[in-house]
């Protein structure tokens, strides 16, 4: 099986290049991450992030044959050869497939991704009906892999100003939580032309999310809440 893999080591390479690798033995059920690990045995200088191997830690987001995804969830048998693997687009490359995620996490922190409650705490749990809790389904499962934001043209064009789909999904996760009491503050924080409104519903984020989440729908829900807030 043939691979073309993006290589760049700032210590030795003046510019990035694509390197060809060949994997002789493809085992049944082999995921791209398994294949990359075998290629790393051929050449230990090949660098990528990975950890849990089952799509819950969010480490191994990469661009695979032109589409963002998690290497551990994609069977190599489903991919057209040569399999082209690149770092997720739009982010500074540290080395090979490893990108600098600082900007991505800065946006995440900026949406205050934590429950804000001003009332005194009860001795027991806050009560939340199953129906209220269901509103968090499709939101809380985000693993912060970054597949969505790094495939979003609005994020490429305005990486400093547009929060991006991942951070906005988190923002809505707290707006949708019946326990949270900071709705007005959260909505106010997202006002202006960029932070939220740079989303043009291109929906690349929805197509690539390895957890099947829908950031565009979350963003639209925030927009609706804002309109309601203004009326």
């Amino acid at each position, binding site marked *: 099986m043939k691979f073309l893999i993006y290589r760049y080591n700032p210590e030795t390479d003046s510019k990035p290049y694509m390197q060809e690798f060949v994997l002789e033995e493809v085992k049944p059920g082999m995921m791209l991450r398994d294949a990359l690990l075998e290629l790393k045995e051929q050449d*230990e200088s090949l660098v990528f992030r990975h950890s849990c*191997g089952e799509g819950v830690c969010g480490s191994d987001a990469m661009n695979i044959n032109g589409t963002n995804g998690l290497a551990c969830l994609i069977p190599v048998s489903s991919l057209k050869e040569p399999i082209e693997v690149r770092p997720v687009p739009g982010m500074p490359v540290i080395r090979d497939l490893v990108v600098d995620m600082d900007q991505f996490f800065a946006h995440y922190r900026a949406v205050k991704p934590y429950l804000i409650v001003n009332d005194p705490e009860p001795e027991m749990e*806050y009560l939340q009906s*199953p129906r209220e809790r269901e509103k968090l389904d499709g939101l*809380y499962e985000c693993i912060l892999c970054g597949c969505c934001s790094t495939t979003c043209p609005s994020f490429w064009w305005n990486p400093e100003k547009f929060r991006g789909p991942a951070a906005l999904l988190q923002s809505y996760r707290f707006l949708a939580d019946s326990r949270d009491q900071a709705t007005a503050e959260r909505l106010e924080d997202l006002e202006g032309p960029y932070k939220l409104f740079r989303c043009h519903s291109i929906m690349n984020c929805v197509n690539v999310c390895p957890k099947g989440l829908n950031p565009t729908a979350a963003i639209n829900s925030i927009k609706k809440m804002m309109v309601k807030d203004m009326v």
Partner: protein
Amino acid sequence: MTLARRRFDALVIGAGGGGLRAALQLSQAEADVAVVSKVFPTRSHTVAAQGGITAALGNVLPDNWHWHMYDTVKGSDYLGDQDAIEYMCRTASKIVYELEHAGVPFSRLDNGKIYQRPFGGQSQNFGGDQAARTCAAADRTGHAILHTLYQQNIQAKTHFFDEYFAIDLIKDEEGFILGALVLEIETGEPLLIEAKSTLLATGGAGQLFRTNTNARINTGDGLAMAARAGIPLQDMEFFQFHPTGIAGRGMLITEGARGEGGYLINKNGERFMERYAPHAKDLASRDVVSRAISIEVREGRGCGPNGDHVMLKLDHLGREVLNKRLPGITDTIKTFLNIDPAEEAVPIFPTAHYTMGGIPTNRHGQVIVPLEKGEEVIPGLYAVGECACVSVHGANRLGGNSLLDIVVFGRAAGNDIIEYLRENRYHRPMDESSVEQAMAHLARWDQDGEGESVAELRRELQTIMEEYCGVFRTEEVLKQGMEKVLELERRMANVRLHDHSKVFNTARIEAMELENLIEIGIATVASALAREESRGAHSRMDYPERDDARWLKHSLFFKQDQRMDYKPVTLKPLSVDSFPPKERVY
């Protein structure tokens, strides 16, 4: 070039649930705290915990913490320390409410309270009917808790060193721990973090075994760092094999799958757990279920062309329960097996899962080592979670108790560190010889030339551990295993890297992780060889019975002279009567 140095009140190594809960306690108390993690915090392995966190909330069935304590003591095969277990079970409800208040999206009951499901080894009224004690956020409870704790630390403005690898502890001649030497992975530059207190929360060592449920990062770094600093490792022979890993692959299928009504069948379609645990059946303790599966396979009742696994039946639960209560494993099964659990049974086999042993601590998280009479605290050093041995899990951990362990003792250690900082207001002078030693450890990987590869030795280690130190053990096999791991340790000296670059050199990190794994492999096999009885997860075919007269004691393995020592189990709880050892049946 001079070594960069930073100073903090408190250093936390590891950003899973234990480290983050401790860091939160410290940040909220306005201590200056640094969290070092070799991966971005939400990539820590707590994220993969599925089924839930135990607490006797009694939301579904009657419950109280004392029953939880009984079950945990019994589950530990009486090797757990009853003071620590009482503390954990008493604190559990408060801890879960705290997490809920912090935002954890627990699943809910119709009355709005936290959803709880039955798990293995849980009973009402000290061994009576099945209890439902596991608080769950669908089957993504670890993810929900880890993300919430990270978010709380963002709010508390905790200082994070993301993608820094801890190399060694720094220790002075009086035995104080002064911080750690760490490596910034992105730049390849070492950094000395000086701290008045250091907490190890680095997780377990599941990567010791070829087939495991663990993330690649679970290489027991903190255990090995402690061992190199002269601290013995406790109860390392007790390694948990989870009954339901996906056969041959290892991905975890939560015990919650059986808690929701799933059950195991052999090739005859027989629900075989009824023979091994007539009362609890599929919800017996993990050690019991794992052994039962291994026996079924060994006696020729396994499924598949090679008869090498059994099946977990879930299809009768219906699609709605699977989607609502078990969505994560439903996805995992579809992705990795290409089957739909709503229609077909799932091939499973016991899979290396959890390190019960670890760095000996008391219930405040302080690291303790034996002294002639009693124990001595290592000043400035703490450990919590899977890398620690409090010991609340003893010889076998109950499902749902590890998320509880990390949060309870993370918080307790945070509180104790706050006290310690009050009494130890100033940084002690740096011990430069200890720093040099740690720097030499790092520099070893700059050696050039031809040699063996990290990948090859890692593969051999995992195969040896699986073949010679698995579910069933004998003296003869363990002795061979011991020779083999010691041989690997010798060969480690001949391992060379080809990649000596600095920027994000993961080959170097993997080499140091392998060094750590080999240390832990030796401790595990040596402790298993020494313990001549069967207790909990440690099953010796040549000593099939539990032997309280000789072995109701914790083992301690000292790396420096490969010596075993022992210390008594704390049978006396804090306030209630002791649960004396008795025969363990489910």
